[in-house]
């Protein structure tokens, strides 16, 4: 679960990490009032969870409260990557000498958290890692001890600091690590953390992604995920509530399958045959008929979907349950769109019988079914 910049910054501030003074606003007037409490010049920043708001014009600067109001108005009327901006963060613009990067993420191979730092911050860190790997300082964190304060200082040294600045930066790194662990962050980063003109350090931007699987330990965020996350589409919210994995894509073939790998391979096969998947939807293992029906309802409610492709390989999932789910969805929601079904595995015969009797044709080969789905999606026109 991604936190908004303002949520992340508030957490950092509460944990003793210096951040620019700022406030949240949801209207231009609020933005102006917020600015009155701060020292100009101001930065006004769109609060969205998608990346790339800077390039999209979601960050503006202002020298007066009046200008801040105008900037906020402009941003609040914006859409960034299709997402309407609902709030802005107004903060004091800082006098930057140097932009650094510091973050904690996980490393799959070493099965550990890893601290990543760079003297080249403020840009895409993966790009730095790719083009200038020598500018990246990676520190594997021993899971049994966490990031030691001395390690935080060693990192500060390796990105070029010494003496008091090394100590200060070390303390900030240490605090960010502690904060990250407290909130089960799979990613926590300051990009950039800046050295100001007077030699101090400040987190100019912050990003926190909480491990979804840990939300049972963070009930306040679990609640906020389901209630306040303004950026989820209707389909995404529904899927989340039904415990289904759903991702919206750009095409027109709606996909429902069981198992993440199989569904991914289904999308790839559709693409291989020249079609465009409209979504990823995994009903998981052993789905009951109601789950199948809920899944179909979600996919069918997407106006972009021209054709529906159901790909089920029954293991724990029983084909007869899937068949019942399809008929249930057909009865309740109505399936007006063309549908292609591939159904094999546990109770395959029974599942086929149920569907065939209801007049629905069932295929056995995933490739054949994918080709047919692509063909159908093109007939409908887009």
């Amino acid at each position, binding site marked *: 679960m991604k936190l908004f910049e303002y949520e992340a910054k508030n957490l950092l501030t509460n944990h003793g990490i210096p951040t620019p003074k700022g406030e949240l606003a949801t209207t231009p007037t609020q933005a102006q009032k917020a600015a009155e409490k701060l020292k100009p010049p101001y930065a006004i920043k769109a609060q969205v969870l998608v*990346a790339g708001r800077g390039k999209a014009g979601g960050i503006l600067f202002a020298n007066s409260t009046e200008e801040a109001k105008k900037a906020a108005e402009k941003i609040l009327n914006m859409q960034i990557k299709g997402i309407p901006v609902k709030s802005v963060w107004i903060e004091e613009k800082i006098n930057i000498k140097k932009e650094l990067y510091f973050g904690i*993420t*996980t490393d*799959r*191979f070493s*099965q*550990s*958290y890893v601290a990543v730092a760079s003297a080249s911050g403020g840009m*895409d*860190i*993966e*790009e730095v890692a*790719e083009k200038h790997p020598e500018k990246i300082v990676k520190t594997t964190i*021993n*899971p*049994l001890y966490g990031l030691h304060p001395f390690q935080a200082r060693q990192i500060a040294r390796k990105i070029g600091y010494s003496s008091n600045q090394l100590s200060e930066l070390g303390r900030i790194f240490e605090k960010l690590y502690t904060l990250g*662990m407290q909130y*089960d962050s*799979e*990613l926590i980063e300051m990009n950039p953390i800046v050295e100001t003109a007077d030699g101090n350090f400040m987190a100019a931007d912050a990003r926190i992604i909480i*491990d*979804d*699987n*840990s939300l*049972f*330990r963070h009930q306040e965020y679990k609640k906020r995920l389901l209630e306040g996350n303004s950026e989820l589409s209707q389909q995404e919210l529904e899927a989340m509530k039904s415990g289904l*994995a759903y*991702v919206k*894509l750009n095409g027109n073939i709606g996909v429902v*399958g*069981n*198992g*993440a*790998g*199989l*569904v*991914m*391979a289904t*999308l*790839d*096969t*559709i*693409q*291989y045959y020249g079609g465009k*998947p409209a979504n*990823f939807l*995994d009903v998981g*293992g052993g789905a009951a008929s109601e789950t199948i029906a809920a899944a179909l309802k979600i996919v069918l409610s997407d106006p972009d979907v021209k054709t529906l492709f159901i790909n089920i*390989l*029954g*293991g*724990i999932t029983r084909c007869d349950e899937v068949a019942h789910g399809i008929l249930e969805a057909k009865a309740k929601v109505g399936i007006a769109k063309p549908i292609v079904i591939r159904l*094999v*595995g*546990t109770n395959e015969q029974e599942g086929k019988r149920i569907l065939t009797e209801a007049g629905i044709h069932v295929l056995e*080969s*995933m*490739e054949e079914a994918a080709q047919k789905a692509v063909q159908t999606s093109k007939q409908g026109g887009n």
Partner: protein
Amino acid sequence: MGIIIDKNTRAIVQGITGTQGTFHAKLMLEYGTKIVAGTSPGKGGTHVHGIPVYDTVEEAQEKHSANASIIFVPAPFAADAAFEAMENGITTIVIITEHIPIKDAISVMARAKQLNTTVIGPNTPGIITPEQCKLGIMPSHIFKSGNVGMISRSGTLTYEIAAGLTKNGIGQSTCLGLGGDPITGLNFIDALKMFEKDASTQAIILIGEIGGNLEELAAQYIAKEKYPKPVVAFIAGRSAPPGKRMGHAGAIVMGKVGTAESKIQALTEAGVKVADKPSDIARILMHG
């Protein structure tokens, strides 16, 4: 033969009294797996399908001396179950449970390294050495004994491919699900090393997906060590957009890291044949 488990494996089922635990304990028993005991704190003294249930692994071990465990315990308690198994002498642990927090998984793996315990999963369909032993939730009938080893990050995709192999008369030595989470016990390199030593395995299928760089590291390993057995691969997620989690917690492209293209390129450069579609794998194995 095969790797990690065979007909001598003696297993306990942790969380045997839950719906999944009870259901799959039966299927494993029917497959011939030696399930010697089950555990479920608070339910000690009962039986499930004739299997004695204990409150603690310690007690189960005193009476049955198992060497493997399969965990169906809910996510908030799964790490504790894994520690319980490890600290009580279990050397192979299969964690079926999905949605275990990363922090918990990291902690489990650190201790497993110290104790030299083999951990499979979490979020795995498990492992099967066909016609000998199954510690997992996979449908058994699609597997048959043979000479191809499988290593996979995905459940149903493994079934899809295994079913294709079996239909084409190609049997499997062992099929191993690494698990769909970012942090798992075994990785591709660990499994490749095991299959290298297993005389019954003549070729290996590597089923990867987007997220992380473990496929790339496996490719480097294959190239560097001149891996002596043929490897065929399939990578799911070519059509996945960056920043989106595709069902598995581990299936996500972060920035530029973890794309299918990167993995396919690395594997191809290492001399591994990468299939375009799942059904191509059997074809490549048979005809090269």
